[in-house]
């Protein structure tokens, strides 16, 4: 369990990652900002929780992470840069012609394990990795983060069936459940509820948590159930911390104005001041 100091530290880190992500999007002229911000706390948790070593990105005992919602890559790139996987100068080339880092992650970027972007692939990839690790009698864990709108892709449900069949208890699937997708509410576009029961029916150990609460996220990440993969449904707020974007589908892909960026910086500075 995390103590108060640890939680405070994570919240400060998240506020900084949020700020840098929005700044990256502002500078590059566009990005999937809504989903970037809803996943910040999950991603910060993973980077703190997983076994990984930026100095040895291919460390054979590392845990694997796949960002299935590859469009939410700006938060990922920001974290990869903060942890030293990629150079800050590379981050500055984001979205430019010929840059290694574009609108979806690829394996040529140090620290990235899979080429994603087309939705509905991450769960299958993570399952294949988890199955190979199990067959090799390895202890590494595999984490995959999907969106919620993404779950409309049928390939996800094929992957759930096979993950349960092969008892992939080394796999944790996290859903960034922000209840919004580009056209509006997920429950209007294509209803997903009751997602927890669905995951359980497919053979997963499922929990529903507040995806912005570090105590809950860390405790969910530590769940292990013999013979069962884990599903964490993390309820989140799309556009979290950027007040003008919170819970708004039209901020799925958008560039903030200079004023909005300045407001965020002000808000985050105040937030950090309150925490400390």
């Amino acid at each position, binding site marked *: 369990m995390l103590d108060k100091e640890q939680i405070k530290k994570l919240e400060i880190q998240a506020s900084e990652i949020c700020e840098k992500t929005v700044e990256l999007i502002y500078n590059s002229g566009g990005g999937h900002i809504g989903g970037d911000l809803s996943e910040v706390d999950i991603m910060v948790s993973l980077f703190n929780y997983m076994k990984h070593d930026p100095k040895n990105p291919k460390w054979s005992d590392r845990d694997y992470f796949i960002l299935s919602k590859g469009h939410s890559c700006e938060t990922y790139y920001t974290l990869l840069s903060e942890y030293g996987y990629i150079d800050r100068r590379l981050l500055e080339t984001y979205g430019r012609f010929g840059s290694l880092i574009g609108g979806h992650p690829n394996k040529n970027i140090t620290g990235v394990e899979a080429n994603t972007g087309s939705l509905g692939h991450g769960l299958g990839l993570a399952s294949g990795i988890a199955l190979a690790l199990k067959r*090799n009698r390895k202890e590494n864990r595999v984490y995959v983060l999907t969106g919620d709108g993404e779950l409309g892709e049928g390939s996800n449900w094929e992957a759930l069936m096979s993950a349960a069949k092969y008892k992939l208890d080394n796999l944790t699937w996290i859903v960034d459940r922000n209840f919004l997708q580009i056209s509006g509410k997920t429950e209007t576009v294509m209803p997903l509820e009751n997602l927890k029961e669905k995951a359980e029916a497919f053979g997963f150990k499922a929990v529903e948590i507040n995806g912005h609460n570090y105590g809950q996220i860390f405790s969910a990440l530590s769940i292990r159930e013999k013979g069962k993969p884990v599903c964490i449904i993390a309820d989140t707020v799309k556009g979290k911390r950027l007040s003008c974007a919170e819970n708004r589908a039209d901020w799925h892909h958008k560039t903030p104005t200079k004023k909005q960026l300045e407001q965020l910086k002000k808000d985050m500075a105040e937030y950090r001041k309150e925490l400390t």
Partner: protein
Amino acid sequence: MEKEACSNAFSKMILEEAKRDKDIMVVCTDSRGSAKLGTYPDELPEQFVEMGIAEQNAVTVSAGLSYIGKKVFVLGPASFYSTRSSEQIKVDVAYSKNNVTVIGISGGVSYGALGATHHSLQDIAFMRAIPNLTVEIPSDATQMRAITAELLKAKRSTYIRIGRNPVPILYANGENIHIGKANKWFAGHDAAVIACGQMVCKALEAAKLLKNEGIHITVVDMHTIKPLDIDMIKSVAEECGCILTLEEHSIYGGLGGAVSEFVTQNIPVPMKICGIPDENVPNGTEAEIFQYYGLDGEGVAEKVKNLIKEKHK
């Protein structure tokens, strides 16, 4: 002529190889019977994955297995793998540079009367448009073994299409069979027939019939559609002055398309693309379908004679 199905050759070989190499993985989608996997799933359960009827997931999971170092062969009907999971082949296998070989079994019109849903007559067109994907259509069991042996040594992303039925064994051994290198038969100067898969056999039959009439042709077994052996195409275009392509595939975008893309831009000679026209084929056996479209020895010989007339116009 002795016959063997390519699937049979593959399954016998992979069982022996997998006993020696624990990184070999075979994945299938309720297709172990038609893939003729035999005792493999029971003998090597740790190196076998059954995904059920889910081709998309089978390919994606195969990519994940490969990322941890497995040498993956995923097998199922060519019709479904080349279309339903074409996106997974594009993204998770080829774009992601994963060492996965997708083997489309019962390809072409192998399924006969099962009809259009089960025929794979567009797979070359789909697959060869994907960057970083090797595309193979072996003509016999020996080629299938030689290609598999090469794939086991190299890390590649590959699509192989094989038929369901036993086909004549054309090669005594695999010595001269290499990915990306076509095999040349005869050295006739009247016309060149470039074929793939079991159509190579039909081209050889046609060559025999034509020889009796004093017409001498070269037959090229273009088992690798990608990367295409352009040196071979150039040399037979120069030697023969006209090219007929022959394939168990739509006349759009397949071997004929690949050859003509090179010929028209580099060494224009008269060409004829032979295969299945842009329509849904009538129900019937494989042999009946080939005969209907003139894709048997006699039909091909006739098409070659017409092409030679064009050449001399």
